[in-house]
C-alpha cells in the first residue's frame, strides 16, 4: 500500500522537482538580463524620451497574453477530443495567467499613451482588441468560478475557450475596419515602434520577450501544481470516504 502511495506521489509531482528548479533559475537569470538591458544597456529613445522604456514591458506582456490565450484554445480542443483532466488544468491555468498579462497590458498601455499621445485611451484597433479579449476571458474565468467542479465545467469552459479564440481574428478585422473611420492618434501612431527600431532596441525587446515567456512557463508550473494538488486532496478524501 505504502509503496504504491509513494509512486503515485511521484507521478502527480506535487513537490517541485528538478525541472522546476532549472526553470526557476533560468527565469531569474533571464530577468536580470532583461532588466539590465532595459535600464542600462539600451539608450533612451530620442523622440519619446524615457517613457519609451515602458514598451519593453508592455510588448512582452501583450505577447504573453496572446500566447496564453492560444494555449487555452489548443488545450480546449485537446480536452474535447481526449477528455483528459490534464488539458482542462492547463487551459484553466493558462487563461488565468493570460488574464494577468492582459490586465497589465491594459494598465501600462494608457500610462504610456498619456505622455506620448496626450490621451489615456484611444480606440486604436489594437487597444480595442485587447479590451475585448480581456472581457472574453474574464467571462471564461467567471464561468469557471460559477460552475461546480467536474467534467461538465471542463466541457463548458472548453467550448467557450474554442469559441473565444475563433472570434479573435473576426474581432481583429472588425475593430481594424471600424477604427479606420476614427481619427488617428495625434502625436505618434503606435506604428512608430516598429519603424524606428534600431539594433540595441531590437536586442533589448527580444531579451525581454524571452524573459517574459519564461515567466509564463514558471507561473504555469506553479498554477498547474496547485490544481494537481487539489485533485490529489480530492482523490485522498474520496478514498477515505469510500474506504469500505
Amino acid at each position: 500500500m505504502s509503496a504504491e502511495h509513494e509512486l503515485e506521489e511521484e507521478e502527480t509531482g506535487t513537490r517541485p522537482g528538478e525541472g522546476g528548479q532549472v526553470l526557476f533559475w533560468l527565469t531569474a537569470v533571464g530577468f536580470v538580463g532583461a532588466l539590465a538591458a532595459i535600464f542600462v544597456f539600451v539608450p533612451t529613445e530620442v523622440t519619446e524620451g524615457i517613457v519609451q522604456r515602458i514598451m519593453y514591458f508592455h510588448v512582452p506582456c501583450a505577447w504573453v497574453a496572446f500566447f496564453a490565450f492560444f494555449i487555452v484554445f489548443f488545450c480546449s480542443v485537446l480536452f474535447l477530443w481526449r477528455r483528459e483532466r490534464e488539458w482542462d488544468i492547463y487551459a484553466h491555468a493558462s487563461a488565468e495567467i493570460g488574464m494577468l498579462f492582459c490586465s497589465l497590458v491594459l494598465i501600462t498601455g494608457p500610462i504610456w499613451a498619456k505622455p506620448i499621445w496626450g490621451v489615456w485611451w484611444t480606440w486604436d484597433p489594437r487597444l480595442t482588441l485587447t479590451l475585448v479579449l480581456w472581457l472574453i476571458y474574464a467571462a471564461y474565468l467567471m464561468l469557471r468560478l460559477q460552475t461546480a467542479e467536474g467534467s461538465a465545467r471542463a466541457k463548458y469552459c472548453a467550448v467557450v475557450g474554442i469559441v473565444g479564440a475563433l472570434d479573435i481574428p473576426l474581432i481583429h478585422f472588425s475593430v481594424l475596419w471600424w477604427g479606420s473611420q476614427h481619427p488617428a492618434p495625434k502625436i505618434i501612431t503606435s506604428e512608430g515602434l516598429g519603424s524606428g527600431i534600431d539594433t540595441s532596441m531590437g536586442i533589448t525587446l527580444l531579451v525581454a520577450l524571452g524573459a517574459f515567456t519564461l515567466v509564463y512557463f514558471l507561473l504555469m508550473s506553479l498554477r498547474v501544481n496547485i490544481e494537481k494538488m487539489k485533485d490529489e486532496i480530492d482523490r485522498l478524501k474520496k478514498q477515505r470516504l469510500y474506504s469500505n
Partner: protein
Amino acid sequence: MKNLGFLFAANLAIWGGIVFYIFTLMKRNRALRRDLDLIQETVKKESGK
C-alpha cells in the same frame, strides 16, 4: 528625464501585478500542502490499523 513618474507607475503596475499573483499562488500552495500532508497522514494511519 521628464515623465519619470509614468515610467515608475508602469513598472509599479507590472511588478506589483506579477509579484502579487506569485504571492497568492504561494499562499494557496502552502495551504493546500498543509491539507495534503494532513490527509496523507490520516490515510496512512488508518490503513496501518
